[in-house]
């Protein structure tokens, strides 16, 4: 559905995006994670035809965003990270204006607007002026606006920023509903756990480069690179230490009473092999487990690592 190839954006000599490659399938909810200034909004602006890339291109539904901007605009619903509303308009007039901007006939708009307001739980605010709505309500109204022409792709730049936990959950439910309608959704955030809950796939961007891409669980291991394994033993600690020390994938063995933990860099297959050998070597293993790492820590570790490189 979305194909990004070698996308580059330069501001002077500074690269906001450096040869970004990405491919997102139809109906996927894709989370775009990165620290401040990583290039998330830049990517979204290019996809929304607001910004011209320095090099590379992107295709949505087979159409190039730089060459067929008019058609792209009909395909996408874009919600910027920061946006204003026309304060002198009422909520339904606001939606009506954008409906007419997409050439939707008046009669159809009339039917559509209550449905959209219903979807984002703003029915009770239909005749209120937009500027008296709370931030979260404005955000939901803006989301309703992106939906008015029934776009195939939604590009939402930090839709949950500034929302309280309850509003976040509501936003998540709305997104789930949209996903069930078959829309391809791109969401950005700098909070990985928040995205992990609602996304099928996640891409991590740092310094304008995609450093990881995949399902939530793949990202976790890919980002970790190494995992921490903990082995609980009945006894024979010495024997166990000398056994594990020999393995080339293992570093930093720490010992406790009846247990030892170490950092492991091998693949899953090698890990299974390791366990098998340990058992065959008569090491009295009680448990052999991977230590759960917080997604947040993972994110911190990986983005820091890239910065240093």
């Amino acid at each position, binding site marked *: 559905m979305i194909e990004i190839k070698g996308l580059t954006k330069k501001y002077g000599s500074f690269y906001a995006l450096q040869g970004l490659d990405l491919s997102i399938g139809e109906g996927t909810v894709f989370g775009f994670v990165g620290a401040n200034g990583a290039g998330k909004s830049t990517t979204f*602006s290019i996809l*929304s*035809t*607001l*910004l*011209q890339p320095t090099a590379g291109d992107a295709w949505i539904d087979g159409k190039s*965003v*730089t*060459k*067929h*901007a*008019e058609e792209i*605009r*009909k395909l*996408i619903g*874009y919600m*910027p990270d*920061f*946006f*204003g*509303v*026309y304060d*002198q*308009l009422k909520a339904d*007039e606001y939606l009506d*204006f*954008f409906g*007419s*901007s*997409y*050439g939707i006939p008046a009669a159809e708009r009339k039917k559509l607007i209550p449905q959209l307001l219903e979807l984002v739980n703003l029915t009770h605010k239909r005749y209120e002026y937009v500027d008296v709505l709370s931030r979260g309500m404005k955000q939901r109204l*803006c989301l309703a*606006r992106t939906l008015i*022409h029934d776009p195939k792709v939604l590009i939402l730049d930090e839709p949950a920023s500034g929302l309280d936990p309850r509003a976040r959950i509501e936003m998540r439910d709305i997104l789930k509903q949209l996903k069930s309608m078959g829309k391809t959704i791109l969401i950005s955030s700098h909070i990985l756990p928040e995205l992990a809950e609602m996304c099928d796939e996640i891409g991590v961007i740092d310094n304008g480069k995609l450093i990881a891409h995949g399902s939530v669980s793949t990202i976790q291991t890919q980002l970790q690179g190494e995992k921490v394994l903990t082995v609980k033993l009945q006894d024979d600690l010495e024997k166990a230490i000398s056994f594990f020390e020999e393995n080339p994938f293992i570093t930093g063995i720490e010992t406790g009473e009846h247990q030892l933990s170490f950092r492991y860099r091998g693949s899953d297959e090698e890990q299974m092999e390791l366990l098998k050998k340990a058992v065959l070597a008569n090491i009295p293993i009680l448990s052999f487990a991977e230590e759960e790492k917080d997604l947040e820590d993972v994110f911190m570790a990986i983005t820091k690592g890239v910065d240093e490189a």
Partner: protein
Amino acid sequence: MRSMFTNPVLIKELKLRFRAFKSFSGIMFYLLALSIFVFGFIFVSMEFNLSGFINSQESVLLFSLLTFVQLALTLFITPGMTAGSISSEREKQTLNILLTTAQSSFQIIFGKMSSSIVFLLLLLIAGLPIYSLVFLFGGVSPTQLLVIFAFLILTMLAIGSIGVMFSTILRKTILSMIVTYGSMLFLTGVTAFFFLISMRMNVSSTTGVTSPSIFAYFWGTINPIALMMTLISPEMLEEFYEVTKIHFPIWAGYLIFYSIVTVVCLFIAIKRLRVNMKKAR
């Protein structure tokens, strides 16, 4: 044609504009000032005129004063109405969303432009009943008024386009305002100055004006004040031909120049509204 009346931006802008209290207070204030001016004029001329009625000469004077009030209104309000049309949306962070909609750049610029023009026209037309008083006293023909109105509208379109263009290419409303007012002052003040200078240079002390002066003609013909003067009194026109020795009608020169300004400025605004993407081949 149908799209003109269903232009979303136009409808939205008019809705916003008429909802704002300042629009109504603006119109009221303008009409009040105009009425005080006219009735004050009538009152004063009656005082000095023992016969107790207004003659047609005074009526022409009143007519020209009114015309210059309308011209001043056009010149000073148009930049204020248009120079923020795009940049204020950018400042309020509503522009990005507008630009991702399916509306063409032409539609957006056209909607912005026409909503300002509609409002300004309303101001001009609101002044018409007061104008009509002049007809009571004679000395002025309705066709004259029509022609003057047509040229006021042309001036409005040209200055409005300049405002919309600067509002599109400059990021800040304040800057756009300054440059648009600057352009307006250039077209009314500086051109008059240039006109006088080039006229001087063309006059020889012994033989008077002998050769035609393209410069004097050009600066004179694009000056709104000069145009209005020639439209009000034909003697002025004769004088103008006398000093420039070019007998091309000044209104035609004005029409051509400001039509080009309008078209070029709107064209630039439409081209520059969105980032310049590579065109499909």
